[in-house]
């Protein structure tokens, strides 16, 4: 029971990270109708920058957190012009290819030029602050709890923004019908830049959560995170924020439990296999597509 609870909390915290990344990709899918596959790689690249900043200054966690946040925001916004071209050409497939290409470039940088390609381990000032809980086999670190709470809060905040603010209404109008959105006077280019800034903020939060709750970061992790977030977005239904959020939490928990109770080496194939069947059975997503 203790193992089960600890795995549940760990799964929910990983699920919170998936939910954040999936929400960022969903936002761009809604506003720009592009799947930004490089989004998860940007998150992991930001954790690398934060780690480098902490290495240079003897592990100052505040500086690391600020560096992660700033670099995630910058890396996301810098790619906006590239995806703007794809969005204006209405070329979603080409956007996927560009995203994978950029993800590959970031993977190479992470796996060849930083820390000789070894996985990063973040200092304990970042990973085990606050009151930890441990009761026999039940061990939960405070950052894990923070990851769950922050993941939920960010997605709730994004939904509130989309449904309560003027800019959010403009985003939803663009998701509904681009032509009409232009006619009623929404500045499409500026709104597109705003959506990338918003996604960049979410990438920054996700980077901080990855480094503190998982306490490690590596290039293979980026591959897995990118693929899982993308598949979660597709299975839940492109642009469906609530569905994506719930499914991301479910995937995190399922993964954590299969790792604890099943021969671990099959867990990746199993989770992806189930998600693949779901995509093929329901091409518009289990919860329906909104894009």
């Amino acid at each position, binding site marked *: 029971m203790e193992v089960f609870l600890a795995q549940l909390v760990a799964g929910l915290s990983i699920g919170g990270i998936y939910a954040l990344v999936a929400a960022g990709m969903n936002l761009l899918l809604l506003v720009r109708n592009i799947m930004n596959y490089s989004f998860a790689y940007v998150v992991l690249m930001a954790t690398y920058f934060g780690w480098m900043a902490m290495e240079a200054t003897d592990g100052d966690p505040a500086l690391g957190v600020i560096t992660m946040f700033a670099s995630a925001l910058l890396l996301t916004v810098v790619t906006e012009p590239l995806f703007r071209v794809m969005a204006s050409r209405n070329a979603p497939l080409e956007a996927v290819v560009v995203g994978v290409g950029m993800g590959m470039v970031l993977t190479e940088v992470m796996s060849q030029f930083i820390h000789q390609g070894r996985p990063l381990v973040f200092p304990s000032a970042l990973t085990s602050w606050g009151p930890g809980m441990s009761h026999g086999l039940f061990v939960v670190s405070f950052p894990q709890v923070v990851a769950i709470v922050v993941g939920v809060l960010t997605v709730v905040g994004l939904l509130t923004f989309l449904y309560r603010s003027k800019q959010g209404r403009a985003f939803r109008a663009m998701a509904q019908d681009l032509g009409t959105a232009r006619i009623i006077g929404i500045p499409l280019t500026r709104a597109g830049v705003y959506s990338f800034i918003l996604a960049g903020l979410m990438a920054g939060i996700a980077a901080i959560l990855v480094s503190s709750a998982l306490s490690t970061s590596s290039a293979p992790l980026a591959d897995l995170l990118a693929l899982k977030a993308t598949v979660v977005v597709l299975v839940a239904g492109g642009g469906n924020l609530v569905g994506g959020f719930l499914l991301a939490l479910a995937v995190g928990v399922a993964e954590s439990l299969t790792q604890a109770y099943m021969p671990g080496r099959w867990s990746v194939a199993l989770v992806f296999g189930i998600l693949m069947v779901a995509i*093929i059975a329901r091409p518009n997503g289990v919860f329906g597509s909104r894009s």
Partner: protein
Amino acid sequence: MSPAITLFLELVAVYILMTWALYLPFKAGQLFNGPVYTMAVGGYTAAYCVQSLGWPLPAALALAVVLAAFFGFIPALGFARTRGIATAMGSIALIFIVQSVLMNLDFLGGPAGIKRLPRLSYLLPMAYGFVVVIGVLLSRLERSRMGRAMEAIAADADFAGTMGVSVSWVNVAALTVASAIGGIAGVIYTFVIRSIQPTTFGFTLLLYVWAMLFVGGRYTMWGAVVAAPLLWGLPQLLPGQATSYTRIILGCLLAIVIVAAPNGIISRDLVNRVSSVLSRAPHDGDQTRARATLTQREEEGEDV
């Protein structure tokens, strides 16, 4: 021929086949990345049959192609209903699944794969034999009913459906044939390298094949023929310490070409212009002129 040149030519043939395997579904508007994993299926089948069961290569090749087509056909039944991003990402997820399954199958060697395959002397002619046969079939397809149906689906799937094209059947056929071509490429690749590992059939391979498809030109079959030797050859000419930048260069090149030159090197216009120059043989000059006058009169709205 020196061994280095033979190896280069054999691998170029493999990449031409792989690029065509992605080009074929793209004609119907599907970015299907499945050939990357059916290449693994084909390669592993042939390697296992030859190495552990002692089969001759032709028999192993036949089984490999059938299995590769089968492993493409099953998901193709589902992908016939999905389009665009869902097909592209779903097939990438399949690459990951197959890689992870191969890592865990002990009778196929696990992460180490199958090593020390026999050397075959007739690989180069066999590889280019396949390139020629599949190339001829593809160029026949351009003018066939099936080819036109695929282009109609790529332009507008719903409209193609109302015009009597069976969208899902054409999709399943294109994806299955593409998977079979991937299987052939896998068999050739495995016996060129003479070993096979699961890690080969991942994102790096996909990046190479995408680069060849998009840089060469994804709207004609000739893009692959130009881009495969170019993109496989250039990194070989780089000095030793620059090889670690190959994938970074490929990723950037892919993004630049897609943004700046969406048609790639060989566009459809270029192919049309070249073929009209080639077909304008001296003796049928009058005929060409007659055809030109006819088109002119049509354009002017005369009744012809």
